[in-house]
């Protein structure tokens, strides 16, 4: 270790190997069999359970917990995965405190929900560790489907379509499949290459070909028309590849937080990844938290999130905010960036204090500067290039309830499509439901 947390600039190796290991270990270690039994025993097996209603994929939570309680975790896993094929990842990354666990009736009685996320992980981990894939394909239909994007929406759609007997080709822009699971979420939420293991497990269904490094519209790859010519139907699940611009002087000095996170996720040896001594993250969502926390865990001396509105308005959940604060990330609210300045020895980000008025957010004359070695922006992502003929709404692909776009034979889901929260679990639900509608269409129903 040649560098320390106090080494100026942007340098790698600020920590000892043990510190890297500890910092990027499982943030929520799995339940062992006894812990799972105790946790499962707390479920009341509610009628028409509120947790189930709160789950975007409508997993039958009381049933799977009862299956764990009675010693059949693989049956529990099948209950989960039948609704949500990425139930393993969702068990790790879902904001359960605002979904299933937030609506658990134990919140009402004791303020402590059944640990649904941890139990879901217990069941799905067991099935995956056994190497079992509990679903089989229907007889071949002779139909072929293109899925654009190997993220949660695309994988979910592809699996469901393959299960119904269709031949699926996934076209994905990145070198590895998984989308945000592989490149986007915080490392400590899914360590030990879980994302790629889950994709490999999912593909065991068969009938899915994955083509990497293929970007729609890029010369040499293909267009939507090409896909429509080669396949009977197309599902678009390419997520949001663009990032919002700050539109400020010096913004070229900032790095999109998504790039930082993607680089981190793909770095085998984290001691080789340079990180600033002082890191500033602009934004207030999950991506801002993930970037700021991981900067701190990589050894940044200070990591500061600056959000333009009040803390209560932060898109990041309270649980995420607490996690950040627990990792000694600093949080400054009601401050909007004005400019980024290159100064001797690094950067300075200039912020203006803000106030919320009836007319919206207003920057005040009161400004301050934060020193930074690295500035990450996490102010939202945008849809990348889309075929001109497809109808958009609110900056996203317009879809109906079943994921149908304005174009015949084209469906969309996940973050690139309108509707739903931009969550892994929502993308899985949308991919699944679009696949069911595509199946009906393909079978002429």
């Amino acid at each position, binding site marked *: 270790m040649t560098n320390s947390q106090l080494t100026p600039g942007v340098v790698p190796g600020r920590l000892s190997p043990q510190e890297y290991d500890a910092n990027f270990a499982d943030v929520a270690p799995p339940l062992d069999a006894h812990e799972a*039994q*105790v946790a499962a025993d707390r479920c*009341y097996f509610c*009628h028409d*359970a*509120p947790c189930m209603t709160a789950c975007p994929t409508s997993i039958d939570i009381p049933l799977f917990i009862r299956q764990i309680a009675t010693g059949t975790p693989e049956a529990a896993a099948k209950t989960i995965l039948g609704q949500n094929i990425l139930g393993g990842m969702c068990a790790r990354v879902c904001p359960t405190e605002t979904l299933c666990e937030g609506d658990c*009736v*134990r919140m*009402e*009685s004791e303020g402590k929900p059944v640990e649904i996320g941890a139990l879901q992980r217990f069941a799905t981990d067991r099935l995956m560790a056994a190497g079992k894939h509990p679903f089989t394909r229907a007889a071949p239909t002779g139909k072929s489907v293109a899925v654009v994007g190997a993220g949660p929406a695309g994988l979910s759609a592809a699996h469901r379509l393959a299960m119904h007997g269709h031949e699926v080709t996934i076209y994905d822009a990145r070198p590895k499949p998984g989308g945000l699971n592989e490149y986007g979420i915080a490392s400590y939420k899914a360590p030990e290459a879980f994302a790629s293991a889950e994709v490999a497990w999912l593909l065991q269904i068969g009938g899915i070909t994955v083509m990497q490094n293929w970007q729609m519209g890029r010369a040499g790859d293909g267009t939507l028309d090409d896909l429509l010519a080669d396949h009977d139907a197309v599902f678009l699940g390419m997520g949001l590849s663009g990032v919002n611009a700050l539109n400020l002087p010096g913004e070229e000095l900032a790095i999109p937080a998504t790039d930082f996170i993607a680089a981190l996720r793909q770095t085998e040896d984290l001691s080789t990844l340079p990180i600033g001594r002082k890191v500033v993250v602009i934004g207030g969502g999950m991506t801002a938290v993930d970037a700021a926390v991981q900067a701190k865990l990589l050894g940044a001396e200070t990591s500061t999130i600056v959000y333009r509105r009040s803390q209560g308005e932060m898109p990041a959940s309270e649980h995420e905010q607490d996690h950040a604060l627990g990792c000694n990330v600093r949080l400054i609210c009601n401050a909007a960036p004005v400019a980024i300045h290159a100064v001797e020895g690094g950067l300075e980000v200039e912020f203006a204090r803000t106030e919320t008025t009836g007319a919206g957010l207003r920057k005040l004359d009161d400004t301050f500067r934060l020193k930074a070695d690295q500035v990450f922006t996490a102010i939202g992502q945008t849809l990348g290039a889309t075929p001109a003929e497809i109808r958009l709404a609110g900056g996203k692909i317009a879809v109906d309830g079943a994921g149908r776009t304005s174009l015949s034979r084209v469906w969309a889901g996940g973050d690139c499509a309108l509707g739903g929260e931009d969550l892994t679990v929502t993308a899985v639900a949308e991919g699944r439901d679009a696949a069911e509608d595509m199946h009906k269409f393909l079978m002429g129903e």
Partner: protein
Amino acid sequence: MADLRSEFVGIKSPNPFWLASAPPTDKEYNVRRAYEAGWGGVVWKTLGSEGPPVVNVSGPRYGVIYGADRRVLGINNIELITDRPLEVNLREIKSVKRDYPDRALVVSLMVPCDEASWKAILPLVEETGADGVELNFGCPHGMAERGMGSAVGQVPEYIEMVTRWVKQNTRMPCIVKLTPNITDVRKPAEAAKRGGADAVSLINTINSITSVNLDDFAPEPMIDGMGTHGGYCGPAVKPIALNMVAEIARNAETAGLPISGIGGVTTWRDAAEFMALGAGNVQVCTAAMTYGFKVVQEMISGLSEYMDRKGMVSTSEIVGRAVPKVTDWQYLNLNYVTKAVINQDDCIKCGRCYAACEDTSHQAIAMDEDRTFTVKDEECVACNLCVDVCPVDCITMRELAKGETDPRTGREVGDYANWTTHPNNPSSASFCGLRPAE
């Protein structure tokens, strides 16, 4: 603090909590620890005749039933009577009784069904200074196959005969321990009384198989791939025991016969319930086996607090107090009408009442879109299932006042009336149907 001192068939103890004849009372070491922990009395684990003692299995001798969080609800055992030499037990009994003169020490006995065997052992027990004997006519496993234990307890004539032998051959009080593995517990109790028993104690364990190993396809506890029925005890058997105690307490033939209540007593409340149904004291085993001897301290403090709250000064004020309230179904008031009421402030909206009522009862609970659950009085038969399954105890039963109309039947709540006079009862004078031609 209430006075918990107890006198049972002349045997005094500082409280009514005794340890039952069972594994916890097999040795001096355990019994001393029990007394130190606060137990009022002990029934020493059953002694057999002089000579080579019985042997026990050296594999698992207990099976278990769990509730949530592995809470022990019931244990079954295939252990036999003491497997230690008679003289060792007698020596230890004498030693313990000498050091704890204020505690009750009763010796459980099981010897072959002949007078000579009983004549032989009684003086030996008397010589220890023990306070009394309990005749084990209850163990359902192992010894029964040898003509002892429940093999005697299932034949009232044998109970009477052996009890008489005992009473003729000792000055010690004699408690007859009854088996529940019979059809009508009043018969063996009556037999014990006829034989001169000073008291009965019940229940001994219930014949049972707790579980089946689904890999080896054998009952558990499993000994070398095989299993056998054992005696079941613990909280799960309490309702069966309470009923049997009540049946003896309210039976004219046995009314007034002292009863030592046994069967799943785990807390002070369980003990008070047994006593209210006629038990003069209680005996405990499974609670101690599950949690250790210290549980008696909660029983002591709990019963004291309860008695203080009720203004009772002696446990005798509890004993038998509920017996007059135990009746036969035909005398229950058919004009007593209640309706379930859900306290909306306390309801956590789990919907278990709804599922239970909708699927298995009378469709008397409505569920609206925001998961508010309300009782439909016009459907509610007051079965109490919703109260039973509610995890937060937010449902109560409201009694309809006399003269109030029951929305379910459209009839006004009237005066007490039972089945014996009901017009639907073919035996009643007011029978409304056609009687078969004579």
